[in-house]
């Protein structure tokens, strides 16, 4: 009540002042610090809500009172107060500031809104804050930049998509990929990574249902909106950038293969044949035979010959012999992981006049893969953004991006193809990585047979049975993937009158992609013939090779029509209340058609030409065929009603709803409605704040609630049979899982509440003079989450898609932006972005656990009510002799305690030297991080020398090191050379380490083989020096004619990682890209790249 009186009093005073003032005209020009005009900057006098805006040349005219103070604001610039005094003409320079509350955002609000007047949380990053990642991709550049978001590069294969998780995991099958918008229009066919970084001006992100509710049935995963650069009025400006980077794979865990071995040797340390005693020599086909462990396993109840797989469990075998005689040690990582290179070039020209503006850019990025340098990934972009005011009030804009991407990496070594690849959510095929990881180190991958060919399958009886050689893959295969993306957006906006503005947008986004995988004829390879193994996609019949063509197309259209109705009570209705309103009614229509067509030809000739007309496999009745012909239509549309009411600078409310129809849900007839409401209040605008305003000039509280959805799969609701062909007859089969005609959209309801604060900590001081803080807490619940719920097998189908799951998540995020130090010549700015989030499964219909198949093979993932999403389940190593079963009974009889001892915190059986593991599974934990935080420091000396340093810290994340577990099978892992003390003797016992792969309580091998165990579940927290860039601009140091910028940049990316994780990179994940649950497994992925880059930026 008291506040209201204050407000009323304040309002009265304002009215009086405005009415009584005498005015005079003032004109001027608004520019940025480079002198470029800022069109549309808003200018008003302090204390008045009305004002004017600058025209295309940055010029403005305004009537002001005597001694008026002008408040100038513009998108992306720090709001500036200037005393007009007695001046008639005034030129005002504005400096950029993305974090200030004066910034204007559009994402999540529908209409351009000052950050000060937002009830929701919107995160923004301007282009100058995006680092020049070696692959020049936007998604890479966004890592660490968005507070709250977990954006991670889970693979180091060039061109692979990255994982984006905004707020919580709210779906299972839908994945976590957010909605991507470019200039207001959804981009669904092209990948965010394909867009040209140099053409992007700004990125806005809204992260949850509360803020993305206006996007309705597709908004629940949040929205990332990109804004294309625009030309500015004035003479044409030309920018050119060029960079060169050297890239190599990270190996922060020092992954290597054991340099010592336990095999049977003679007196000269030759590894010998167990039967003949003769030193082993490589056979003609590159394999070995006759190898044996030194000792057989003679433990009672568990006996194994020395020359068989389980000889590794013999307690007598020790990894203590160097490879210094007949068989040598080969460092496979050195043989396979090379240094790759990237070249980036971009050129853009922009400019404009009073009525038009243009920006035209071209860029090219070329990356040679570090894996055997087997191919390259190249992307070329052409961007044009042209705007014009064709009639008074009618503005037209066209934004075009043409993208050509080419990938020549071989299948298995990074090449793109396979089912669904055209959707952009699949990584390239790096299947050959597993093979070389699991090749015994006494094989030379570069070994060539008598004909000069590489060996595919170098195995030695029971060892190296999962081997595979990337050199062979490179020799016998070839990948070529060509992709063209077209993104065209048109926007027409028309200001009908003072109240009404109409806006129409049309976006078309088309992708066509063709990939060819050629597997050459391998029938002259000695090893392929003798081991009957070869590389193939379809042709597993013989080693005559094949050609497989993958054709993808994706057409997406988005039409968005909006009507805005705005009022200003003071101006329009002569009211005393400082109320402004904005009403939006929009119609939004999206249509997509995705197709895949896969054909093959089997049996390729030994000599060129190798193409579809020369294929022929004498063993097959038909050598060519169609593997897949798939079409996926999708239509959704809806309307949005949104009402925003602001009360001066004091606060405001927004409310509205969106209704959506979709071809994927509701039987096609029922729309789903997503309501939303938000409000904000700025206590710092009230006069009672006066005393605080010196220290706390801005203090805003906000809160929002909204619902948003995630669409079911496009065909999930259509009951069908699976088609097929048997011989030449069509056949129908019952699908698994079966569809569900009654599927509903997945709904996410979210609350968020937060504050935006500006603190003047040391107003005129050099150190820490201010802090911008923005913090948000959010809490969301998802219901109707779709997944296949298992049904009893006797029903004829093991599962049905059902709106089965309730989930919830919550989190907290903040960003702190502060100048650490500022003097005339030097500044140091620190930005800190923090996010914490956690997601739970609350309820599963039918209550049975949902068993998930991880991309990592045997790692067990389960969805269980009351547990976190993505938990990994497995067996635990005993940590005490009193280890108990789930029913409370002890595993070990007290009488037997002396048979065991503690080794490295785990119980080991002395006789077998084996670690003891439970035979009941436990949730090993949630692999998702407890929090992620990024520290971004920027140093600037006279604008001439700049240094930026970004550290990313992911805390509490875990990875299941499946890569390592596989390398334990044959004792290949480097761990096997580490000695342990058992029974008073210190040695690198194979049985100790191998038990981690093989053992479970009650059996030394078998059910425990490669089972998921906590032994391999590792803390994958890390601090990474993500980016360090030192730039020197010669034009700032010396006067150089014609040049605006002549900047030399040295950049290091991912150059240091601090982690306890023992795999090569704690950031990887082998799960499907953007998988909701398969996020914590490292299984034979490619690690990220460490890059050193030198670049030159030229501005004319």
């Amino acid at each position, binding site marked *: 009540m008291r506040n209201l009186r204050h407000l009323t009093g304040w309002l009265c005073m304002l009215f009086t002042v405005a009415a009584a003032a005498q005015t005079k005209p003032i004109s001027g020009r608004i520019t940025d610090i480079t002198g470029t005009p800022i069109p549309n900057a808003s200018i008003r006098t302090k204390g008045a809500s009305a004002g004017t805006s600058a025209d295309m040349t940055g010029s403005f005219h305004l009537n002001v009172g005597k001694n008026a103070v002008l408040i100038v604001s513009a998108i992306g610039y720090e709001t500036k107060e200037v005393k007009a005094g007695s001046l008639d003409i005034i030129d005002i320079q504005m400096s950029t500031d993305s974090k200030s509350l004066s910034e204007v955002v559009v994402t999540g609000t529908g209409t351009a809104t000052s950050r000060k007047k937002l009830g929701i949380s919107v995160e923004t990053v301007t282009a100058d804050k995006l680092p020049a990642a070696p692959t020049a991709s936007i998604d890479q550049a966004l890592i660490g930049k968005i507070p709250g978001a977990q954006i991670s590069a889970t693979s180091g294969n060039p061109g692979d998509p990255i994982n984006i998780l905004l707020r919580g995991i709210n779906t299972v099958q839908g994945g976590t990929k957010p909605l991507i918008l470019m200039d207001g229009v959804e981009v669904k066919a092209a990948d965010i990574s394909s867009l040209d970084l140099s053409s992007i001006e700004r990125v806005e992100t809204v992260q949850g249902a509360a803020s993305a509710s206006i996007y309705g049935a597709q908004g629940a995963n949040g929205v990332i909106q990109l804004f294309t650069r625009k030309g500015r009025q004035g003479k044409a400006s030309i920018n050119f950038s060029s960079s060169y980077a050297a890239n190599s794979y990270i190996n922060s865990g020092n992954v290597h293969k054991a340099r010592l071995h336990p095999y049977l040797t003679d007196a000269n340390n030759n590894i010998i044949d167990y039967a003949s005693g003769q030193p082993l020599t490589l056979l003609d086909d590159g*394999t070995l035979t006759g190898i044996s462990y030194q000792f*057989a396993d003679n433990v*009672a*109840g568990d*006996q*194994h*010959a020395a*020359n*068989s*797989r389980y000889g590794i469990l013999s307690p007598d075998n020790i990894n203590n012999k160097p490879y210094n005689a007949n068989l040598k040690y080969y460092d496979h990582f050195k043989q396979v992981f090379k240094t790759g290179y990237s070249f980036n070039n971009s050129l853009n020209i922009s400019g404009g006049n009073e009525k038009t503006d243009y920006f035209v850019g071209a860029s090219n990025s070329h990356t040679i893969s570090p894996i055997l340098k087997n191919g390259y990934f190249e992307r070329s972009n052409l961007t044009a953004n042209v705007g014009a005011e064709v009639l008074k009030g009618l503005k037209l804009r066209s934004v075009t991006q043409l993208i050509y991407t080419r990938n020549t990496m071989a299948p298995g070594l990074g090449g793109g193809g396979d089912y669904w690849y055209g959707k952009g959510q699949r990584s390239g095929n790096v299947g050959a990585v597993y093979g070389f990881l699991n090749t015994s180190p006494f094989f030379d991958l570069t070994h060539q047979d008598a004909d000069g060919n590489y060996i595919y399958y170098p195995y030695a*009886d*029971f060892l190296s*049975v999962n081997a595979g050689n990337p050199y062979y893959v490179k020799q016998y295969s070839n990948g070529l993937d060509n992709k063209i993306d077209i993104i065209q957006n048109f926007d027409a906006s028309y200001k009908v009158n003072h109240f009404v503005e109409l806006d129409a947008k049309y976006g078309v986004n088309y992708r066509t992609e063709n990939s060819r995988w050629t597997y050459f004829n391998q029938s002259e390879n000695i090893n392929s013939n003798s*081991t009957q193994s070869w590389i193939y996609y379809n042709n*597993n*019949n*013989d080693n005559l090779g094949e050609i497989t063509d993958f054709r993808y197309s994706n057409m997406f259209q988005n039409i968005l029509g909006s009507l805005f109705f705005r009022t200003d009570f003071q101006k329009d209705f002569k009211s005393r209340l400082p109320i402004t309103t904005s009403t939006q009614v929009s*119609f939004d229509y999206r249509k997509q058609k995705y197709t895949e067509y896969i054909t093959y030809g*089997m049996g390729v000739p030994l000599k060129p030409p190798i193409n579809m007309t020369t294929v022929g*496999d004498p063993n*097959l*009745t*038909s050598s060519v*065929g169609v593997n897949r012909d798939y079409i996926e*239509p999708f239509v959704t549309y809806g*309307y949005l009603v949104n009402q925003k009411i602001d009360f001066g600078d004091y606060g405001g409310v927004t409310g509205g709803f969106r209704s959506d*129809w979709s*071809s994927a849900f509701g039987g096609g*007839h029922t729309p789903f409605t997503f309501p939303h409401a938000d409000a904000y209040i700025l206590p710092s605008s009230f006069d009672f704040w006066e005393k605080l305003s010196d220290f706390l000039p801005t203090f805003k509280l906000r809160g929002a609630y909204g619902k948003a959805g995630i669409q079911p799969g496009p*065909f999930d609701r*259509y*009951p*069908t*049979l*699976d*088609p*097929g062909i*048997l*011989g*030449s*007859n069509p*056949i*129908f089969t*019952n699908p*698994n899982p079966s569809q569900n005609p009654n599927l509903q959209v997945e709904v996410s309801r979210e609350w968020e509440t937060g504050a935006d604060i500006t603190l003047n900590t040391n107003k005129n001081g050099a150190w820490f003079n201010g802090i911008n803080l923005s913090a948000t807490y959010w809490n969301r619940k998802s219901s109707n989450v779709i997944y296949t719920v298992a049904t*009893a*097998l*006797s*029903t*004829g*189908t*093991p599962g049905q898609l059902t709106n089965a799951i309730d989930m919830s998540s919550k989190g907290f995020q903040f960003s702190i932006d502060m100048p650490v130090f500022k003097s005339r010549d030097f500044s140091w700015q620190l930005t800190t972005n923090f996010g914490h989030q956690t997601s739970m499964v609350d309820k599963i219909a039918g209550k049975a656990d949902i*068993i998930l198949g991880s991309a990592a093979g045997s790692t*067990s993932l389960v969805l269980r009510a009351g547990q976190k999403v993505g938990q990994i389940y497995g067996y635990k190593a005993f940590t005490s002799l009193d280890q108990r079963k789930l029913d409370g009974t002890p595993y070990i009889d007290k009488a037997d305690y002396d048979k065991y001892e503690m080794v490295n915190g785990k119980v080991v059986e002395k006789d077998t030297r084996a670690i003891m593991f439970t035979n009941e599974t436990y949730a090993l934990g949630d692999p998702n991080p407890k929090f992620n935080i990024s520290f971004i420091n920027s140093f600037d000396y006279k604008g001439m020398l700049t240094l930026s340093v970004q550290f990313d810290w992911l805390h509490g994340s875990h990875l299941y090191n499946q890569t390592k577990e596989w390398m334990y099978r044959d004792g290949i892992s480097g761990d096997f050379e580490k000695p342990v003390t058992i029974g008073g003797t210190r040695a690198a016992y194979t049985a100790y380490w191998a038990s981690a792969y093989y053992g479970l309580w009650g*059996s*030394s091998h*078998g*059910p425990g*083989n*490669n089972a998921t165990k906590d032994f391999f579940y590792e803390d994958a927290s890390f601090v990474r020096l993500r980016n360090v860039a030192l730039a020197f601009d010669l034009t700032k140091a010396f006067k150089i004619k014609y040049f605006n910028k002549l900047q030399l940049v040295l950049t290091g990316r991912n150059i240091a990682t601090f982690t306890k994780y023992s795999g090569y990179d704690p950031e990887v994940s082998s799960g499907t890209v953007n998988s909701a649950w398969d996020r914590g497994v490292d299984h034979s992925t490619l690690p990220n790249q460490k890059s050193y880059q030198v670049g030159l930026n030229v501005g004319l």
Partner: protein
Amino acid sequence: MKKHIWIYIVCAAMLGACKKELNVGNPNSPSIATNVTDESGIISLATGGIYINGFNKGDGWLGNSYFSLPYGYSELLGDMVGNLGASNQLISQVNVPYFYILDDGTKVTNSSFNQTTLRLNNTRAQTGAGYNPTYYQWLNMYAMIYSCNQVLSLIPTIKLSGDSTTKANTLKAWCYWWKGYAYASIGTLYYSGLIINTVDEKSNHYVIKDSILEQSNNYFNQAAAILSSINGGSDYTSVLGALIPAFCQVGNGGVLTPQMWIRNINTMLARNILLNKLAPFVNGDPAATIQGASISPMTAADWQSVLTLAGNGIQNGDYVFTGRASSASGFFTASGGTVSALATGPNGSTTFKVSERFIQYFKSGDARKDNNFNTKTKYNADFVSTRYSMISGGNGASGVYVYGDKTPGNYELFIAGSYEENALMLAEANIQLGNTDVGLGYVDAVRAYQGAGIAAVAATGLNKSAALQELVSERRVALAFRGLSYYDIRRWGWTYDIAKGGGSYHNITSIGSTLNTNVTINYNFIDYWDIPADETDLNPPGTGSAPVKNPNF
């Protein structure tokens, strides 16, 4: 506001126009409503429901069909193949014997063997991880039963051309035959099962395997009854000719006449009896007895029934139900779709390695051994170590049976009964009933049929034990990789605990560098498997149900 009225009109028109667009359907897939409306539609469903739902879907874990995975378990447990390298689907564990005793008396005990591993891994999570052997046969056979019930329910809704009664009856016989087959497969492997006889029926009333086998017999008999009413005209052959894939209508596969089909049914009815009773023959003793088994011994009446049924069973030259790999669009592949394919090739790189205990049953001079196996490489893997590799396509000896061929279409897979199986049932029943030489005559006939080239054993004065030894050897050798090997050594008592009268004697192993030729093996397997957790967790037994875990183990 009037001037903006056009906006509302446009919006309204757009909403109206859009609604029609929403039913995009699934242009990639057929549906019952649009596609199973005519003769070709129901034939497509009746074919796919068997060959894909019944024999392919869900089996991609190991090889790619019912004949690589569930058949694989039968051949693993039958000690016809082995593996130590791969743990997938528990193939290196499911067949581990409790202990074995080498020639020098060394006893090797496995603390984790068939019984422990099979039970420990029968959880839904282990199914998800790919380690639950009990899952697959149950999955496939109930999917097959569902498809048959579905087709049976749709037959009355379809207008069939020509002699529609004959066509409908042919389709019904097809469904009954496969239901008989599916219940037989369930009742022969699992301790209990569910009877689901109409589409979308659900049941939690588990019944003991004998009741399941009764269902099997019942449906086989219904199929036979229908077939005896069909005269085999073109309406019959056109339907059956479309149901059986053309690429399987080669060799012993083809469009069966109703009489041939009835004979196939009789063989299966005989098999249902034979495989689900004990006929102990432990350590050469025809009078051996087994305690604690889930099945009772064959009686003279049982042998007489087998004799009668097999006497009316498959004859030499009859078409039978076979499968072949097609280079494309098949229901399994030539390189991985069968146990045979997974065992064909150099033993270092094949998924399955042919077992010493298979090869030891070839009599010396058997042309089949020389034509199919070499000893170029040795596979060292403890108990499953082997000197033998199987040669794709054999060595080309004329008229000699070939066990494996990875060239698409060459290998003939037997889905149900075969001439050899029927003849050997006649042989065994005759020997057991005292007609030793009549029985041995059938053994000789099978050897001749497969080109073994060894001397006849009939009328050579063999006693019952020796005659049974011939029969046992020939069944192991002639019926290899046909999904029967486990059931044979089970009913002969070999898989039962030595302490309960079982065990397998005089076996060969090639562990290490010494060859043992008199190894005693105590497999001690669970005889009838527990029901997979994927059924019992989601469909717990109702009151009055039979046990879902074999109570005898």
